[in-house]
């Protein structure tokens, strides 16, 4: 497996790019040299069978996990070599993350959960809660502001989690099966809102899903099998991304 000849200096136009990413858990490899890139404002779906490495890829791209080999660039700068503190800062200022369930602090109210990223950024309590209220309204859960996650339905909790992920108006939203724990109707509603709001704000979205209907909301889809892009060529996804970026 050789690197493509054009893989240096061509990440321009890509907001986020992972190149030749390798990551193992103990002796079992989860990522085997995959490359992915995404343009600003794009909604990218990452699909593939269970255990193929989708979540691992997302965690690496978001700077939550460190790849064993390969590199991750965000806005032209390499981030996988950053310290945990630096990546943590990046995540709370320029990234948003959304998981399947269980990401809200169960003891905090909905409004406090949403306000948390702002409080961490040093925003005062009152304005932070006001902004949180606005986001809860946007996802039609304003009436749950004082409720705790344990008192909400799965769909409601997921809307609150979206509000929390987006309250800092991040440049990239990473979502791992955001509708995976919801029934079809609730899942579709949550997804529609997600797409509407992120498109409006021009955000870039990386969304892991194994649901073709969910993937259909995306601009582009890449399929992973066994830690590699579907056709076995590790860089095909990157080429595709570059092609689109170049065509702009």
């Amino acid at each position: 497996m050789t690197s493509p000849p054009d893989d240096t200096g061509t990440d321009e136009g890509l907001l986020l790019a992972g190149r030749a990413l390798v990551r193992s858990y103990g002796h079992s490899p989860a990522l085997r040299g995959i490359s992915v890139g995404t343009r600003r404002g794009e909604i990218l779906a990452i699909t593939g069978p269970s255990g193929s490495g989708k979540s691992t890829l997302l965690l690496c791209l978001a700077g939550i996990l460190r790849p064993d080999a390969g590199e991750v660039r965000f806005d032209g700068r390499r981030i996988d070599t950053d310290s945990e503190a630096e990546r943590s800062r990046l995540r709370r200022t320029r990234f948003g993350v959304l998981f399947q369930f269980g990401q809200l602090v169960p003891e905090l109210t909905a409004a406090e959960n949403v306000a948390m990223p702002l409080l961490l950024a040093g925003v005062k309590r009152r304005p932070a809660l006001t902004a949180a209220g606005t986001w809860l309204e946007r996802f039609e859960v304003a009436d749950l502001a004082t409720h705790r996650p344990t008192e909400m339905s799965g769909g409601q909790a997921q809307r609150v989690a979206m509000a929390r992920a987006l309250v800092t108006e991040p440049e990239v939203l990473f979502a791992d099966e955001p509708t995976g724990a919801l029934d079809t109707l609730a899942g579709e509603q949550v997804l529609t809102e997600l797409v509407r709001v992120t498109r409006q704000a021009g955000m870039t979205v990386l969304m892991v899903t194994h649901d073709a209907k969910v993937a259909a909301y995306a601009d582009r889809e890449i399929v992973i099998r066994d830690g590699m892009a579907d056709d076995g060529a590790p860089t095909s996804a990157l080429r595709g991304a570059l092609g689109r970026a170049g065509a702009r």
Partner: protein
Amino acid sequence: MSGSADVGAMRWSTLLWLATAGGRADRTRIALTAVGAAAGVLALLAAATVAATGEDDGPYTSQLLNETGLHIGIVIALVLLCVPVLAFTGQCARIGAPARDRRLAALRLTGATPADVARVAAVETGLAAALGSLIGLGVYLLGRVLLGDPVTATYERSTEISSNGYLIEDVTGPALRLPTDVLPPVWLIALLVLAVPIAATVFALAALRRVTTTPFGVVRSQRVRPVQVVPAALFVLGAGGMALFAGLVRLTGIDGGVGRVPALVFLLLFLCTAIGIVLGTAAVSARVGEFLARRTGRPALLIAGRRLVAAPFAASRSHSALLVVVLLAAAIQGFRSHTLLSQRQSGNEFYARALDTVDLALVVAGAIAVAGLLVGTIEGVLSRRRAAAALVAAGVPRGVLGRALLLEVLVPVVPATLLATAAGILAARGVMGTTVQESSYSATGRVLRVVETAVPVPWTALAVIAGGTTLATAALTLIALPILRRSADPGELRTA
């Protein structure tokens, strides 16, 4: 798992196997539950033995044992030692329990009821405690044999020579190290060995009563507002009663000294105070937490405050043993000040030595209580690891999570410790009085004059107790921090 829909008929063995299928955490939980039960039974058997020891038994190397009048004190101390031991056991029963409950809850998809799930947990705790109980009995019986040989020692023998005069002489000869020559009645031994596992099971059931686990492992518990009037009333009754104890004893017409009835009344009052403080901790935690959470803009304080509101009993449960020890320690320091002052002239250092032994027991009890607190803290950290991992993934600095944990532990400890220290010293001064009469004698033994001396409040000792407890608690939380760090693993975020 097979697709069997009829879980009602599912074998108990299958359920128990499932309860313990989680590996290390489950083994630790069961082992520590057994150890706690063994220690509890051992303490209770020791108390029963001392209670059964009379004038004709012995002699023993320790003056505490030779002096039958002091036995009631030892018995009370040993029974109270069971409080941190049992609290520790209760904490240990939670290790790995959320994961176990999730596994059992998965069964509910195939039809097991929440009651089945709770019952499995209770049976597991009961069996582990029963095993521990038997081990405790074994250690007790073995100890009687191993430590049963008399050794040569010098001990004091007091002989009554008149209605209120004693002859005290030093005797050197064979003496026993422990009352290994006394065996409590068999029915009492059986009762104690049975009581511990039964109590453990009841506690386990009570702990699970309000928690229902959904098949997705989401624990939904009703919000409980801790009662405030009952603990306050118990505290006032207990602490006030102890402060007025001397008067109370006179009122009941029982003459002073450490008779059985006043000792029992005192024990009850003490328990009232202790229960009041422990329950009150929950109310205070919830109140202070709410107060902070409603105002603060600091993430760590907000998280800590909300956790205290959401689970006020978690704090009081893990702190209860420590608070009882603090209460006891403060009372004993007051007792010591009094004793030292009143014995100054007599030159009799017996009580001072006895108090050193009690101090040692307190340190042991404190260490057990602190270990229980650590187990409770770590368990809390582990059970919240998914939320912690999500926060770290979202870029919350780990320092914020660490500070939240520290605040969550310290916010209830500080007021509760101060209250317990105050109640303890109040109790001692109530029972012993605040003054001591010192008489000076002439060469012929005539009383020249009687001076009332105020017993000093042992401020230094009290500061050491209250400050030491707070510091020890903070230090413990620091031990739990690396576990917090590791528990916030992104692996928790995988869609399982």
